[in-house]
């Protein structure tokens, strides 16, 4: 069992949702990313998604695009992603990598899965890998016994939902709405509907992402989902802060507030 799967058993037994935080590796710099993740964990984030910054992030809104661009301009690549993963996982926090498919394909699916496992990572989220194209990846994750997390969307039909969720382990990433990543003012009912439909076809924990940024939103999602994913809101705090010190304080505060939200 991966640390990620163990986490969901724990949060289920505590009758609460898990809080999952996202940050791209190398943002704002390699070390500051690790510091910000520590602040997130101190504030109460249960698990970390480390983004592999990519040149053509079609699922991401302006906040994550800007963060990825900054990270890439400093030369972030696979090496930095794996060392960040190792730094986080070694503290005992469940950690996964979120990446578009091409960096995996370039690295080699087997090699990528192997190095995730070697770094102590629990798995990988692949937002643009369709199950039809996943054969080499499926073999790689099974061999390394890491979690394979696919994204489902409100537009995913029931029949397909069964097919995609059958490929998931660790958790299922439910996109709360039709759109790209970013902070939004209110939650949509589409997330609740989607999670309900996933429950009909799968026992795997479901975490909701896209647009969650406040304690109240986290609290609402925690009523029906097993996990709440927050990314852009943390990144925006770091982008807006005058200094890294200020950014870390604000990140810790947001994490603390969200952690209260996920407790039902």
């Amino acid at each position, binding site marked *: 069992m991966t640390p990620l799967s163990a986490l969901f058993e724990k949060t289920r037994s505590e009758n609460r949702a898990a809080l999952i935080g996202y940050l791209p590796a190398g943002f704002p710099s390699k070390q500051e990313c690790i510091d910000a993740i520590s602040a997130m964990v101190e504030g109460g984030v249960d698990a970390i998604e480390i983004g592999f910054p990519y040149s053509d992030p079609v699922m991401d809104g302006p906040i994550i695009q800007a963060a990825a661009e900054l990270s890439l301009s400093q030369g972030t690549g696979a090496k930095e992603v794996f060392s960040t993963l190792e730094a986080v996982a070694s503290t005992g926090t469940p950690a996964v990598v979120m990446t578009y498919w091409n960096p995996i394909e370039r690295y080699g699916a087997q090699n990528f899965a192997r190095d995730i496992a070697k770094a102590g990572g629990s798995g990988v989220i692949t937002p643009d890998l*369709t199950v039809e194209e996943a054969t080499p990846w499926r073999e790689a994750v099974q061999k390394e016994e890491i979690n394979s997390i696919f*994204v489902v969307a409100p537009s995913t039909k029931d029949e397909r939902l069964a097919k995609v969720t059958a490929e998931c382990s660790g958790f299922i990433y439910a*996109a709360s709405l039709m759109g790209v990543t970013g902070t939004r003012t209110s939650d949509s009912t589409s997330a609740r509907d989607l999670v309900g439909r996933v429950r009909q076809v799968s026992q795997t924990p479901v975490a909701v992402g896209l647009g969650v940024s406040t304690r109240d939103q986290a609290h609402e999602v925690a009523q029906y989902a097993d996990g709440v994913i927050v990314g852009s809101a943390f990144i925006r705090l770091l982008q807006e802060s005058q200094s890294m010190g200020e950014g870390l304080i604000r990140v810790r505060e947001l994490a603390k507030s969200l952690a209260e939200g996920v407790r039902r």
Partner: protein
Amino acid sequence: MTMKSTVVQEDILGHFGPYGGRFVPEALIEALDSLTLAYEEAKVDPAFIAELDYLHKTYTGRPSIITEVPRFAEHAGGARIILKREDLNHTGSHKINNVLGQALLVKRMGKKRIIAETGAGQHGVASATAAALMGLECVVYMGEEDTKRQALNVARMKLLGAQVVPVTQGSKTLKDAINEAMRDWVTNVETTHYLLGTVAGPHPFPTMVRDFHRIIGVEARAQVLELTGKLPDAVLACVGGGSNAIGIFHPFLDDLSVRLIGLEAGGSGIASGKHAATISGGTPGVLHGTRSYVLQDENGQTVESHSISAGLDYPGVGPEHAYLSDIGRAEYQPVNDDQAMEAFSLMCKTEGIIPAIETAHALYGAMKLGRELGPDATLLINFSGRGDKDVDTAARYFGLPL
């Protein structure tokens, strides 16, 4: 409408050997499935075929003519050179073939809004045109860099009632315009059709867009046979994403005596690293929803492409071209900026036809091949677009006062 070739048979998921397929957010799968279904139904529906055919005859100006160019051919080893005049289509390039086909599909699917990406502006203009014709809302994403290079086409799109959104992310060119269009599509997929302008992107785009452009090759094959009594020795076309090339190549795939040659944008030369020759200088990878050749670094990050021609300035290429290259059925060669401009100038001065700079890459390829093969050879070139939009770039290149 579609006649399957025995050389290339894409599978039901849109794979050409190891290339093609779908690498997209799950949110788009439903729309791609609906589009695939709508297209599969439409392409065998006599009413749809008749409507598109009627539009091509009365609006596009099809069939486009062929023109033999003996004065230009003197600079190409005296080979017989025949142009397929897609530049004479309404809106000035081959792009209208695909746009009208997809716009009819949009009507059939009941969607009211189309979005499109554009590099040179040719596809954007064609999309804006079709939207005006069919009463659809149209938003065109265009890299900020390209809006400057192709200001005339930006004005044309606006005159046609389209909204042009300059894209300021990344390299501010075609690649980033596609990213932004895909983000729009993910968000508005229920009401919006993404009218993709080339034979790339997720299935069904590479096959559907190809099918809409096959008319180029179907007409040209018959026209050349009628004019010369035989098939050409080679068919040449420029390749950015590859839509005009696949359109003219495809009906010749089974004619194994006919060489198929795609001319890629060599920019300042492959060795310089500043080029857009994806097959000649790239490696297999995934970009914009499909697996094909990609200009990328060791981390799988897309590398910026460079070309004097905005329409070829793209770091990816259609998956069918990748496959045709691997199996050796088609050849792909780079033509650098200076070579293309040499051919551009020659075409203007020897034949009184101003080509698009994209097309000039194919013209240079024919000059080179003609010199190799000599006067007995017949070469068919897809003259994909006219050069009005490039007057500014060309004048600057040749140092003419504006």
